[in-house]
């Protein structure tokens, strides 16, 4: 059996990585990493490949898989943000298109009505004030 390449499965807890298993087969190590992830006992797991380097006589390590609940949370948060951004963009586009369409300026009519109502009210108040001054001055 050759262990020129080996795979260590690590879990992260209490601020440090701890080895949980040792395999000479990448597929087994990754499958076990996925199972541990699903079990949710550790906040993060990773698989580290240890490759024998004949030039140095030592092993070179590289992480071939890493997953954490924080990563998964970040991923879903990013997806939610992207979805929200898309919805806002779609609403904005629809509004811009509606405003650009020729025809009755339906959207501006409520504002004009309000201005007209305020003008009438001001006029009525002014008229009432003048009437009151004249009335009490004459009385």
């Amino acid at each position, binding site marked *: 059996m050759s262990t020129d390449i080996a795979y260590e499965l690590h879990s992260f807890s209490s601020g440090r990585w701890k080895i*949980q298993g040792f395999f000479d087969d990448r597929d087994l190590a990754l499958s076990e990493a996925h199972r541990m992830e699903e079990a949710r006992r550790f906040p993060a797991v990773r698989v580290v490949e240890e490759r024998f380097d004949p030039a140095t006589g030592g092993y070179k390590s590289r992480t071939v898989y890493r997953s954490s609940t924080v990563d998964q949370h970040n991923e879903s948060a990013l997806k939610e943000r992207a979805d929200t951004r898309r919805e806002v963009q779609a609403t904005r586009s629809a509004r811009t298109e509606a405003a650009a369409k020729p025809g009755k300026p339906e959207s501006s009519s409520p504002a004009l009505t309000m201005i007209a109502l305020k003008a009438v009210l001001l006029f009525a108040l002014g008229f009432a004030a003048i009437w009151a001054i004249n009335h009490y001055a004459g009385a």
Partner: protein
Amino acid sequence: MNVYRPEERRLVLRLLAYWDDLRGDRDYPRADDIDASTIGDDWAQCFLLRLGRTRVGDSRVLSVGDGLLSDLPDGVPATLRQVPETALLHHAAGFVQQTLDKGVPVSLGGEAVLADGKTLFRSILLPLSNDGSTIDHLLGAANGRPVGAEPALGAEEQAGA
């Protein structure tokens, strides 16, 4: 098939999941936590060792499953040293020291010349401890198929993976 986690097709991963569930928050389960009936049909491919105090070869072979007995013509040997090299058990238990050094489950596979010829095998050794820290027993499992033979469905499928 009556096994632990039947949805998993690979024997070593089924055993590893069983061991992991059994230990819970502990580093290692106890040897007497092992329940053959929960392991089910996979028990035939399992073996249990009680480690020697000084030498790995002095480890006692406490149990060998039926599936590993075929290349042990003289029955279950008392110690690991007495296991013939042509038995799958010899190769499956060939990395006891590595398992003790690492202190975690170790799964290795490879090619071995057994009584029936060249065999591609896959095995796992799972550490057990009665005091929670010193590894005193090992639960092992192995399966294999002749080199060149098509992998069978089920438990044998992952041999040599």
